[in-house]
């Protein structure tokens, strides 16, 4: 393409921008490097476990002691309000809890308020109640063996019920009405001997809430705990721990197992280390990675601020 004689002269090329300083390059750090570092922090401890010691905290210990105080033949109501996303944190607690309850001969009534939970709960029941978790000779387990639980004799699965807080209130007032009087397999609740005389939540010896969010442990405490003076223990994801810890302090929750770290503590208290203990190293490395990212980001921020204030340039 040619330029005609009457056209204006081309504009002078802009002055080349100085190359970014090392500090500027760090401030524009490609976050994919952080993703890679986090990926390594998660994968490497799985491949090369360290196995640092774990000691139970007071809230986990309180939950364990409350459940350990149950007597053979007692009946607990277990609300499993979760979805697959929360299983890494909550499933280890559930399995340790089932072993503890079965060892003690405590009977279990299971319900759920989350639409995404029924297939998950059904599988868990098959693996942990219909079959033994720790039969005699289980490697790494020195406690008494458990036995398979019999459906509608040792445990009842009530299934899922939509209605959120309304269902919680119904459970507090009339368990049969809340679940239309039938278990998930269609068996009338009146034909299940272990439910004789158990018509509402206050008739249970303990309420155990395995809760990943809304509706869950917080709503149980707010809607029925004080009204019926219920004994409750909760397990939740790590992010919910700060939400629920006030209820632990006020005595409305008798124990709180918060997140994967507390699940690992619970597994050790029950005496059968599982996936939470295996995941403790990942938790260590992942948290360390976040702490390093925070410190690194702040170091860059403060160095940059000092230079900006001093008018200096980074090399």
């Amino acid at each position, binding site marked *: 393409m040619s330029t005609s004689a009457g056209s204006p002269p081309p504009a002078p090329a802009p002055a080349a921008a100085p190359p970014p300083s090392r500090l500027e390059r760090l401030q524009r*750090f490609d976050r994919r490097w952080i*993703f890679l570092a986090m990926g390594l922090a998660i994968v490497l401890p799985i491949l090369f476990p360290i196995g640092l*010691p774990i000691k139970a905290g007071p809230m986990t210990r309180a939950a364990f002691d409350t459940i350990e105080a149950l007597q053979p033949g007692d009946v607990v109501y277990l609300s499993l309000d979760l979805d697959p996303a929360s299983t890494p944190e909550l499933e280890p607690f559930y399995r340790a809890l089932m072993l503890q309850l079965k060892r003690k001969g405590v009977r279990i009534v299971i319900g759920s308020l989350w639409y995404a939970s029924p297939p998950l709960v059904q599988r868990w029941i098959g693996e942990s109640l219909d*079959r033994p978790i720790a039969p005699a000779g289980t490697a790494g387990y020195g406690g008494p063996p458990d036995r398979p639980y019999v459906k509608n004799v040792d445990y009842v699965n009530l299934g899922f019920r*939509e209605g959120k807080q*309304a269902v919680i209130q119904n459970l507090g007032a009339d368990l049969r009405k809340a679940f239309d009087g039938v278990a998930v397999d269609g068996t009338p609740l009146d034909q299940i001997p272990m439910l004789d005389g158990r018509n509402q939540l206050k008739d249970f010896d303990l309420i155990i809430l395995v809760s990943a969010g809304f509706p869950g442990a917080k709503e149980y405490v707010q809607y029925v705990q004080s009204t019926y003076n219920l004994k409750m223990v909760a397990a939740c994801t790590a992010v919910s721990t700060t939400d629920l*810890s006030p209820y632990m302090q006020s005595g409305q929750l008798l124990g709180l197992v918060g997140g994967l770290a507390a699940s690992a503590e619970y597994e050790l208290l029950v005496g059968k280390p599982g996936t939470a203990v295996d995941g403790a190293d990942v*938790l260590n490395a992942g948290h360390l990675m976040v702490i390093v*990212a925070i410190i690194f980001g702040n170091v860059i921020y403060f160095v940059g601020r000092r230079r900006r204030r001093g008018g200096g340039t980074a090399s």
Partner: protein
Amino acid sequence: MLKKTLPVALGVVVGLYAVIQYYVPHHAVGTVTDELRDWAAILSAAAYLLGAINLIQVTLPKIRRREPDWQFKVVMLLSAGVMLIVGLPWGKVAGGGPGGQVVIEGRDEAAAAAGKAVLRFEADADVLVQAGTAAPVPSRDPFGRPAEIQVEPGPLVFKAFREVAGYGEFDTDAYARAYAAAHEAELAPVRAELAAATTAGDAAAITRLSERLAALSTPPPLAAGQVAVITADPPMQWGSSGRIFVWIYDHVFAPCNATMFALLAFFVASAAFRAFRARNVEAALLLVAAILIMIGNMPMGRWLWEDFPDIKQWILDVPNNGSRRAIIMGAAVGAISTSLRVVLGLERSHLGSD
């Protein structure tokens, strides 16, 4: 009138009732309260239906106009449709067999000498079998031979189920139902006689016929040395606990759901680097507290320093709980005042702008 006054009046009546019922311990009030709670649960469930209709109303025009990413919306609607179809309880419409049969045959002399009966299971290799309350075992041994379990003589108690979820079970109850159905020809006249005796009020006949009915509809107990051959073929189920629904849940929904949650770790690390800066005193306090909580929450926190978990617990118990409590109580007071405005008819924004 119908658009504004009636909804406001309903809100006032139901709202006032919800408050007053706490202070009136009469059983009639309790009955009405239970009924209202049922309505609340039904309304909550109905919201899913409204949600589905709304989803279609919002999404279909976008697909028709070929708006950006319309292909994903097609996938979403198709997925919702598939889950709806496979989640319906087709098995209840089509019916299904008992999933197996039991034949008492032969005699095991060794078991008889030991005073035991024998359960022999004929089933696919993926079927687990259970006698009484014993732990389930594979239906075939490593050489492919059917499992034989010695049990105490007496009523037959067993269960056969597949290792994967989504299939039915062939168990004692299913066997009892099949047994009763097979003896229907004998049971029908006894039932008719029982109905007549009940009408006549003949107590002795009622007792005799009830016992006869129970005896005819209950499978016979196993005697020592008897062998019960249990042929089990647990059938595939439909509906929300059926094989296809569970397969999609396990292999599509659960991994996607877990992946979305797992991605948080990467975004948290990235955000921690980019945004979590000690720009002022408050941010610095938050940052230090966060680091201490994280260290205290790490299993290695105690290994680094014995007191880290205690510091974490103090932060949770004192500053966190204090501020959480203030937030909870503030939110509660706010909710009460908003509810009062609704109950008194002062707040009408929830009725819409028309």
